[in-house]
C-alpha cells in the first residue's frame, strides 16, 4: 500500500471504520423502512451482535467468520420472537416492541456479570478491518440494489406507498415484512460484531435509545427511495461532528432535530432517486 494511504489511515482510522459501520447500519434500517415498517431495534440488534461476537472471541476463541455468523443469527432469532407477532398488526406495534427490546437489553447488559455490567467488555482483539467492513458494506449495498430492481423491490415499494393496495394485488405482506425484519437484524448484528472487533471496547450505553434514533436519522436524512440514500445520510452525519467540532457535544440535538425537520419538511430525504427496474429501458414501447 502506498505510504500516503497508510498515513491517512493511521490518522483517520476510527473515522474510516465508523463511516463503513454506520453505512451498514443505515442499510439495515433501510431494509425495513423500504416497505413502510419502522424498527427501532437496530441499535439493540447491533448490541446483540457486538456482545455475542466479543464473548465468543474473547472467552471461547472461536474463528472470526463463525463469530460473524453467530452475530447475525442471534439478532435474527430475537427479531423473529419480538417482531413476528407484530407484523399482522399496525406498524406502530413493531416500533413499540423494538424500543422495548432495546431498553430491556440495555438493562440486562448493565446487570449481567457475563457482559461486564456498566463497564462493558474491553480487550476485544482487532480482527476486523477495512476489507471486512467495506466488503460487507459493498456486498450489502449490491444486494439491496439488486433486490430493489427486481420484482421483490417493486412489491416493497408498493407496500410502502399503499399497503392495502399492495396486499389486494397479491403481495404476501406478512412474509415480506418478516423477511425484511430478519435481514435487517442480521445486517445490524454484523455491523455490531465488526464494530466490536475494531474498537476493542463495548459498553451497554453504546446501544441504547440514542443510538437507535441516530440510525433512523441516517436513513431519513438520506432518503429511502434507493439504497444509496441511507448510506449517504450515514456518511454525512458521521462526518458532520468531525468537520464541525462544536457539534460533537450536541449529537443528540442534531440527530433529533434532523428527524423532526426531515419528516415534516422533506419526507423523501436528500436523495430522491427511485431505482429503475431491470431491463426497463429495453422493454419500453417505442
Amino acid at each position: 500500500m502506498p505510504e500516503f494511504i497508510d498515513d491517512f489511515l493511521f490518522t483517520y482510522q476510527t473515522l474510516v471504520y465508523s463511516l463503513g459501520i454506520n453505512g451498514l447500519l443505515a442499510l439495515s434500517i433501510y431494509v425495513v423502512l423500504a416497505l413502510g415498517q419502522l424498527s427501532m431495534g437496530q441499535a439493540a440488534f447491533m448490541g446483540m451482535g457486538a456482545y455475542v461476537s466479543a464473548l465468543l472471541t474473547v472467552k471461547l476463541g472461536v474463528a472470526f467468520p463463525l463469530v460473524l455468523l453467530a452475530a447475525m443469527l442471534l439478532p435474527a432469532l430475537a427479531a423473529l420472537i419480538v417482531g413476528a407477532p407484530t407484523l399482522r398488526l399496525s406498524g406502530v406495534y413493531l416500533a413499540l416492541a423494538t424500543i422495548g427490546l432495546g431498553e430491556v437489553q440495555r438493562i440486562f447488559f448493565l446487570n449481567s456479570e457475563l457482559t461486564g455490567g456498566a463497564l462493558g467488555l474491553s480487550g476485544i482483539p482487532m480482527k476486523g478491518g477495512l476489507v471486512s467492513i467495506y466488503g460487507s458494506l459493498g456486498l450489502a449495498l449490491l444486494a439491496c440494489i439488486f433486490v430493489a430492481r427486481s420484482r421483490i423491490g417493486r412489491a416493497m415499494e408498493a407496500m410502502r406507498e399503499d399497503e392495502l393496495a399492495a396486499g389486494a394485488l397479491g403481495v404476501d405482506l406478512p412474509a415480506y415484512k418478516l423477511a425484511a425484519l430478519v435481514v435487517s437484524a442480521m445486517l445490524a448484528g454484523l455491523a455490531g460484531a465488526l464494530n466490536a472487533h475494531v474498537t476493542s471496547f463495548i459498553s451497554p450505553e453504546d446501544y441504547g435509545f440514542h443510538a437507535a434514533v441516530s440510525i433512523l436519522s441516517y436513513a431519513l436524512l438520506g432518503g429511502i427511495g434507493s439504497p444509496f440514500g441511507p448510506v449517504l445520510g450515514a456518511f454525512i452525519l458521521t462526518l458532520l461532528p468531525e468537520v464541525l467540532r462544536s457539534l460533537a457535544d450536541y449529537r443528540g440535538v442534531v440527530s433529533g432535530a434532523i428527524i423532526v425537520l426531515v419528516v415534516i419538511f422533506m419526507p423523501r430525504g436528500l436523495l430522491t432517486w427511485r431505482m429503475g427496474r431491470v431491463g426497463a429501458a429495453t422493454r419500453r414501447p417505442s
Partner: protein
Amino acid sequence: MLAQQLFNGLVVGSIYALFALGFTLMFGVLGVVNLTHGFYLSIGAFVALYATQHGVAIWLALPLAALASGVIAIVVDGLLLTPLRRAKASELASLMVTLGATLLLYSIANAALSTDIRRFPPGVIDGSAIDLAGVRVTLTQCLIVASAAGLVAALLWLMNGSRLGMGLRALAERPDTAALMGVNAGALVRLVSLISGGLAGACGVLIGLNYNAIQPYMGEVMMLKGFAVIILGGLGDIRGALVAGLIVGLLETLTAGYVASSVKDGVGFALLVLTLWIRPSGLFGRIAVKRA
C-alpha cells in the same frame, strides 16, 4: 409481608396506570404514538420542584405542574404534529417525529439541567407512615392510588358520558366527518394534548414525591413500563390502561420480592411480547381492522 408487597405493587401499578392513561388517550383519539409523553413527566416534576423550593405548597404545585406540562404538550403538538395531521401523514410519520423530538428535548434538558438527582425540600409532604393492619402506608402512596382511580373514572365519564366525549369519539372515528358535523376539531386536539400532557406532569410529581428523586431522564425510565402497560391494556383503551398498570405493577413487585430484583425490569417486557403473541388486541381490546 405478602400484604405489604401487594400494597406496594398497587402503588407502583397506579403510577404505571397514570403514566399510560395520557399516552393511551392520545393514541385512542388522535392516532398518535406520542413518545414525548415521558418528557412531560420530567417537566411536571421539575416545575413542582422549583415551585416548592420557592415556598409554594405541594397542593398548589401539583396542579401548577400538570398545567405547565399540558401547555407544553399543546405547543409541541401544534409545532410538530399539526403539520403532519394537515398533510394526512401516516401513524409512523408522527411516531418518528415524536421520536426525534424526544431525543432533542432530552438532550437539551440534559445540557441545561444536568443529570444530578434532585430532591424536594424536606417537609413538603407529611412523610410519616401509618400502620394499617401490618401494612405501612404513607400519605403519598394514598394520594397516588386515589389519583389513579379518580382520574380513570373522570376520563371514562368524559369519554362516554359527556357531550365533549361524543365529539372526541367522533374525532377518533373520522376527523373529517367530525369537523363537517360541527365538531371543533382544532380545539379538541388541543384539549386532548392538555389532558394527556397534564396527566403526565401530575404523574411526574407523584413519582418524584414517592421516590424523592427527580432528574431529566426520569420519563425515559418509564417508557419501557409504559409500553408494556399500553400494549397489555390495548392501545387506546382507558380502562385497559388501569387494569394493565396494576397487573404490571403487582407482578413486578412480587417478582422483586420473591424471585430476584434484577429480573424485575424484564417482567413488563415479557408481558408485552406475550400479549403480542397471544392477544395482540390487549385485555379488553377489539382489534381495529383498518379498511381503505
